[in-house]
Structures are given as structure tokens and as C-alpha cells.
């Protein structure tokens, strides 16, 4: 069980960091609907959690897609002259079109204990979703690399696994205070998991070495590089 400094259990949300609510879900992932004003915080690859308001499990996921839909009114506005600021503000603040984020489930927590695996049940519609940026929670969730297995097994689906791994590792590296040891061991885990998938491993390592230039060892970890 992980209890953070402020007394909250792993999986408990604070309300400050809410980025939207669950639109639909399955065991392997969930879609989050957000308002435009909530779009500042989340980014591709970030760790989020669907936090039920009752005693159900909190479900962790990585954001792998953000989707902004159109509608006939937006299409008309695009065709007309340059939209005015007030019209842009109206579209973004007043109209009820959510921004949709797709997440890949990578774990869950029960009574504060974090488990890297698929949850017994998905979150429900309208469960609030929070972004995980607190150092303690990030350290607790990413302490062991087991959740990366769930990312790698999504290869071949619509999840851009290589880009997702790179974005996630880069973000967590920074959130952990440029934790070199964590980055190197996590990349080693990625290599082990992708050893049989050379076509996915090589671009992932190349992008990682570009994304983490202060870690020259990344290139050396590559197969024969």
C-alpha cells in the first residue's frame, strides 16, 4: 500500500488535477471527454487515472491519442471569413463538444496498492479522470517497469507504441527529477520486451536517444550500437 505525504492513498484524486471524465471504457482502455479549458495539462504519453467517487479501483492509463471532432457549424465557420475572437471563444467555451482522449490501461490501484495489470472491471461513464503529475505518485507507479508490458502488447493496434513509450519515458524522467538510473533501467526493460520485434525496437531507441540527449548511454544500450 502506498500512502503519499499529504495522507492520500495511491489512486486517490485531489480534484485540482481533473482533466475530464470517462466517456466510454473497456478493460484495456478508456476514452476521456474534456473541455477545452482542461486541455492545458494532459499531453500525449502522460499518466492519468480514472478515479471513481465510490470504493471501486482507480484505473491508470497512458494517453495515446487526442481527438478533436468537428460538426456542421464548425465546418461552416471554417468556410466563412476569418473567425472572430468572440466566435472562437464561443466555440471553445460554450459549445458542448468534448475533446476526446484515448488511453491505454496500464494498471490500477486497490486500497492504495498499485497493481500493474488489467483491472477487474473498467471505469464507468462520467468517472472523473485526473492527471498524475505528483512526484510521489509517479515514483510509486513507475518504480517497477511491469506496466510497460501492457504498452508493448498493444503493438499492431491503433496505439503508436514506439512514440508512446518515448513520450512517456521522457515525461516520467523529468517528473522524477531527471532520474538517470530509472531511465536507463526502464529503457533496458523496453529492449528486453522488444527484443523479438527489431522493427519496433530500433526506431524506439533512436527516438529515445534524441529525446534524452543527456543520457549518452541510451544509444549504447541499443542492439550492437
Amino acid at each position, binding site marked *: 500500500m502506498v500512502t503519499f505525504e499529504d495522507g492520500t492513498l495511491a489512486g486517490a484524486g485531489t480534484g485540482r488535477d481533473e482533466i475530464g471524465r470517462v466517456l466510454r471504457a473497456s478493460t484495456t482502455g478508456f476514452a476521456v471527454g474534456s473541455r477545452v479549458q482542461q486541455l492545458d495539462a494532459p499531453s500525449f504519453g502522460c499518466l492519468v487515472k480514472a478515479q471513481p467517487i465510490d470504493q471501486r479501483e482507480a484505473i491508470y492509463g497512458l494517453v495515446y491519442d487526442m481527438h478533436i471532432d468537428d460538426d456542421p457549424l464548425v465546418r*461552416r465557420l471554417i468556410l466563412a471569413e476569418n473567425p472572430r475572437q*468572440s466566435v472562437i471563444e464561443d466555440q471553445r*467555451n460554450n459549445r458542448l463538444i468534448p475533446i476526446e482522449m484515448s488511453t491505454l490501461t496500464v494498471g490500477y490501484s486497490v486500497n492504495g496498492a498499485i497493481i500493474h495489470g488489467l483491472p477487474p472491471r473498467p471505469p464507468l461513464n462520467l468517472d472523473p479522470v485526473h492527471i498524475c503529475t505528483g512526484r510521489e505518485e509517479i515514483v510509486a507507479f513507475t518504480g517497477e517497469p511491469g506496466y510497460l508490458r501492457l504498452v508493448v502488447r498493444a503493438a499492431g493496434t491503433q496505439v503508436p507504441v514506439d512514440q508512446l513509450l518515448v513520450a512517456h519515458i521522457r515525461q516520467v524522467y523529468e517528473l522524477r527529477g531527471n532520474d538517470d538510473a530509472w531511465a536507463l533501467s526502464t529503457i533496458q526493460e523496453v529492449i528486453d520486451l522488444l527484443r523479438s520485434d527489431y522493427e519496433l525496437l530500433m526506431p524506439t531507441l533512436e527516438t529515445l536517444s534524441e529525446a534524452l540527449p543527456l543520457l549518452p548511454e541510451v544509444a549504447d544500450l541499443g542492439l550492437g550500437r
Partner: protein
Amino acid sequence: MTLELEKLTGKVEEMAQGAYQQQQQQDKVLEGLLEKLYANRVAWDKIREAMKTAEQETDPKWYRAARPLDEVEPLDVVVDPPPPPDEATVIAGDGSQILPNRHAAYLYSVINIGLIVYYHGRGQAPSQETRPVLDYPNGEDEDTFVDKGAIVNLRRDLAEIETLVDKAWTFRREEHPVVALLDQRLLYWPVGSSGEDEGQRVLRGWQEAMIKAKDGRCLLAGYIVRPGKRSVMTMLQSLDINEPDFDLGKLEERSRTPGLTDATLFRRLLLAPGQRSKVFVDVSHHNREFRSRDADNEVCFFYLNPGGRPRKIARVDIPMWVARDPERVKVVHSLVYNQCQIMGDYPYVLSRADELAVVGGQDRESLEVMIANAMEKYGMAGTVTAKESGKTVARAGRTRHEGLRRR
């Protein structure tokens, strides 16, 4: 079964041919009317005399024409859009309704009004709100409640203008102009009412709202897309009233030439986006009734080219107290066109008010679940009729089979 389009091919061809022939005839009539318009552009005495005679010699119930508001702008004037004020408040309201359904689990009706306030010139997001009202047979006979469907429509119309004007009233102390825009004619006349009293009540309420708008210095306007009025044409035809063998019957609304409207005439005149026509006063027994209630309520109108292709013509209705002040007309003209420019050919605020007001299928389902939950709490379970449940099943996700497609 779905619609078998191949069985309609011949009829569709016939329809297109008929439309073409009608167009040819209309063009001929239109040319004549345009010539009359140009020839009498400032013939104020002749127009006044002709209209006076026409009003005396025709059935007042069916004589619907237009009178020039002033004798300053010629009949064929084309006014370019003036620049809008630096700042203004443009408010729009629209309504929708759920009519009572005899086959549904519970009897109820809903009126929902959508309102949007657009802060012109301030670059900020508009504010918006909806005002839903639920009605149900509170001890009333169910058949009587179901029969009130037409009354729900009348009440929605009244709620639209009352809600709009109430909102505009809150801006009455603003320094800059306030325009309140309705998505329908201002010369409202209740139709389809099963109860005369209700129709009269709605009409009185409508006229009172117009007076309140004036008291609040709010420039009320009605915006009509594809207007069907032919009042200006009737005025032009009236100019021949002293000709021998003139057929008075053709001045009456019931014998109108199909397809020809004022809009077809002004489409030839208002060539550039934003241009407006002369301001006219509606001549009809309806407007006389409005004037008798309050002279400032008499409804006037001008035609507007709102932009977009192919060229369209809209009508903007304004009350007399707005129409007789050229500065107020200028504000309405400029701001309505300014709104049209946002989307190309229709006021943005009216689109948004409609979007806010409309009650979609999902909203309706959610409301019915809400009502069912509340009813069940008191052991009042309702059931839909077999007809309703059959329709629901048959319509759910019905699509035409289009063969197997590769995904």
C-alpha cells in the same frame, strides 16, 4: 420497406420540367414589375392614391401590401451595409418543444427556449442559457391535454419573444445599442389554435413584449429566411388600379401568382452582400390590429442580401419606432449583416440560439427516464402503447443494406 426511388423517376422529371416552365412565366411577370418599380421610384402621390383606392375596393382581410415608410429613399434604393457600431449587444432567442404524445408512457409537454448574448466588439465569449418549462395534465383530462398540441406551439412562440425581451431588458441601461433578434416574423398572428382565447392571450402577450422592448430601448427585429411575402409586388400591381379592365382579384392574397415573391424581385436589385432595400410598412388587417394596440408596434420591414451563393434574400422585420429613426435602422442593418458575415449568409446568434433550444432525441430519452424514475418512486409506472414500442424498434438504427464492404 424503404422508399423505392426508381418508382419516382418519372414524377421527379415531370417536377423539374414544371419548375422550369413556371420559371419562364415568372421571369416575364418579374420584368414587368421591375420596370414599374423603376418608373415609379419617386411617384409618391400616385402610390398613395393607388393604395388608397385598392384598400377601399378590395376585401380588407385579403389585401396585403406594402407602403413606403418615407418619401425620402426612392422605391428602388439600394443601401450598402453601414459599418457596425464599435460595441453593441446582440441577443437572440429561439424555442423548441416536445408535444404531448398519446402513445408515450407519460403525458407531458416541454417548451425549451435558448438564449445567447453576443458582445459585439469586445472579443469575449458570448453568454448563453436555456429555459425549459415542463407541463403535464395536472388533474386535467388526458385527451384535452393531448389536443393542446397546437397551443404548445403558440405558447412556444410567446415564450420566445417574452424570454428574449426579458433578457434584453437587463441590458436597458447600457450605453451602446442592444439588438434583440427573433428567428421569425414580428407581425405575429396565432394560427392553428384550437382555442380562440388562447390565441388572443398569446397575441396580447406578443404585443406587450414588443412594447416592453421599446421601453427598454431594445431594437427588436425578426429575421426571416426565404420570405414568402409579396406585399411590395402587390403595391406595384396596385399602381394599375385605374386602368380599364383591371382585375381587382389579383391584388388579393388568395389569388397570388405561385412562386413569385418580393424576394424574387429584390434578388434582382440587391446584388451585393449586405445591401438592403427601402423600408416598407406592412399593409394588412393584422398590422392594423398591431397599430391599434400601440402605434409604435406597427411592423415595418426591409429586404437584405445576407451574402452567400447563390444569392439569397432575407427579410428583416422591425417595429415602427425603430423604422422611423434612420440611425436605429442603420444599427439593425449593420449588426444583422455583421452577424451574417460570421457564417456567410445567416446570423450566427440565431444558429446558436437554435442549437441551444433544440431538444434532441437523446435529451428526450433522458427526460423520459427522469420522469419514469420519479414516477416509479411513487409507484406510478407507465407503459408505452404497442404502436409506440413498435415504431421505436422499427426505427432503431435502420439502414439500407449496401452489400458487403471491405473495412
